[in-house]
């Protein structure tokens, strides 16, 4: 929406009018302000997590701690059940990834390669389940899980996490397979490969980076999920369930360190898969 520029002049190489210069300064000021609003709380909790204990409770508290200290983080990591529940969380996330990919990848492949009756209905179902409050289904699942003997197990938590991650995974895998040229696969089939061989030898290797992104996205969903994990476990808790269960009785520094600890892996994975974030909620896979 910037004022029309001559198309042959690359932006920035032309002297700006005072008005344009002022607008650009205003634009970047707004951008910096908004970005700070998003980043500052994360930065602050990181600082707080590495503040020495005496300064954490001291008053007046300096905005920047006098020294770097891992006391608070060490206290959190060594608290009862934290290490164990972190391992549980990782296990649940890996199980969720396994279930989700095995189920979602074929669906994504079908949506990317075939035109068939019911395709739009399926896509609509995926869009609806994507926004459904699936975690709340954990409450009615309690009875069923008891009956099946999977209450308070990591597998049980992974099952419902997979139900939450599946719609996203189908959307991601669809856009990934759309990105792998159909012609290459057809060429392989013309040269004598069956569809399965063509898939395994041509499409799958090309799709692997994208599938890794889908796996990371699933990891983030499972790692972050609080409600279902808290309701479906009593002993074998995931990390968020463990933190939540101890929240009422815990010290401020436990809460702060817990918040930061849970944030780190999510931040790393979200950075790695940033390209797919828009597709996940933009609705249409890359095809359109």
């Amino acid at each position, binding site marked *: 929406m910037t004022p029309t520029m001559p198309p042959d002049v690359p932006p920035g190489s032309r002297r700006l009018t005072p008005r344009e210069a002022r607008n650009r300064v205003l634009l970047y000021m707004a*951008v910096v302000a908004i970005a700070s609003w998003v980043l500052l709380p994360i930065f*602050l909790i990181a600082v707080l997590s590495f503040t020495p204990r005496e300064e954490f409770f001291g008053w007046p508290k300096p*905005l920047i701690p006098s020294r770097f200290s891992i006391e608070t983080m060490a206290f959190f990591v060594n608290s009862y059940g934290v290490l164990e529940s972190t391992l549980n969380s990782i296990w649940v996330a890996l199980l969720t990834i396994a279930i989700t990919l095995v*189920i979602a990848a074929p669906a994504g492949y*079908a949506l990317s390669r075939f035109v068939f009756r019911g395709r739009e209905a399926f896509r609509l179902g995926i869009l609806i389940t994507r926004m459904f409050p699936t975690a709340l289904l954990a409450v009615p699942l309690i009875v069923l899980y008891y009956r099946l003997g999977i209450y308070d197990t990591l597998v049980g938590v992974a099952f419902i996490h997979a139900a939450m991650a599946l719609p996203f995974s189908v959307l991601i895998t669809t856009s990934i397979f759309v990105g792998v040229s159909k012609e290459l696969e057809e060429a392989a089939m013309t040269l004598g490969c069956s569809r399965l061989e063509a898939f395994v030898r041509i499409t799958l290797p090309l799709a692997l980076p994208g599938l890794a992104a889908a796996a990371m996205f699933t990891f983030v969903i499972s790692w972050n999920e609080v409600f279902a994990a808290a309701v479906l476990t009593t002993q074998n808790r995931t990390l968020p369930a463990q933190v939540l269960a101890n929240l009422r009785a815990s010290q401020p520094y436990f809460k702060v360190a817990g918040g930061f600890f*849970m*944030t780190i892996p999510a931040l790393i994975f979200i950075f790695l898969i940033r390209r797919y974030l828009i597709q996940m*909620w933009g609705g249409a896979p890359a095809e359109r």
Partner: protein
Amino acid sequence: MATVDTPVEARRPRPLRQRLLGTDTLLPYWLLLPSVLYLVLFFVIPLSQAIVVAFQDPDTGAWTLKNFSDLLRWDYKFKPALKWTFLLAVTIVPLQLVTALLVALLVNTRFRGSQLFLYICAIPLGLSDLAAGLIWYGIFADRGFLNSLLYALGLIERPVTILSYTQIDWLFGAVVVAEHWRATAIVLVVLVAGLQMISKDYLESAEVLGANRWQRLWYVILPLLRPSLQAALIIRTIFAFEIFAVVIALAGDFLPVLAERAYTWYFFRQNLQFASVYAVIILAISLIFTVLYLVFLRVREEERR
């Protein structure tokens, strides 16, 4: 290779795959089957189970509204929970829509660095609600950053207690700020995707016809963005009704909300009936908005033609 010249039909004998899976016309259905089964299993069974537990007498198994009337009688926090959940939703969602729209328009000017900016704004998308609640707890707590900042600016002498059950309005405000910070990214991403789908031709035509920047925004961009705005609005509204961990982290159970009640009744009091009733209420609200979403989505399909 010689096989390249062979006619396609004569390529090879009917393979095992075709005998097992039928022809290629059936293949997509086989590929979709696991997803469909899994989703049906995981939505239909718990949903029907929720209705059974919520509407049946736990002792006799007869269909009844007793659980609902018991809940009304015993849970004095039911009405506050309903009130606060609605108030939070009607406060947060419009705020998020406006902010996200402004930021999306900013991103859409495609300034240098806009992709990095969009990524930064999307970061909270990857945070759990519990972590986000705890992050803001670190800011709002008695010895938190807000108090330190106010002291450094010389505005206060001693820490001001923000998060206290005696000041429910402050708790509400803290939750609004934290939830706005955490969940605006979803709206933003939906709107950015919607803006990207608007063809440049419309904007260029409007410009040629002499429309200024505001006229283009008001008469071209916003009407074309309407489907995305509706989708974002409904998605966020559904999520707003399951607000949970942010509230727990900042306000404990002093600011009762529906999902927190479901959790509390099951987790601390082992009362599955009441927990199910709460779950059914939230699911019913979500279903209503899902139907709205479908209706609007149909409008969207027609508009596309």
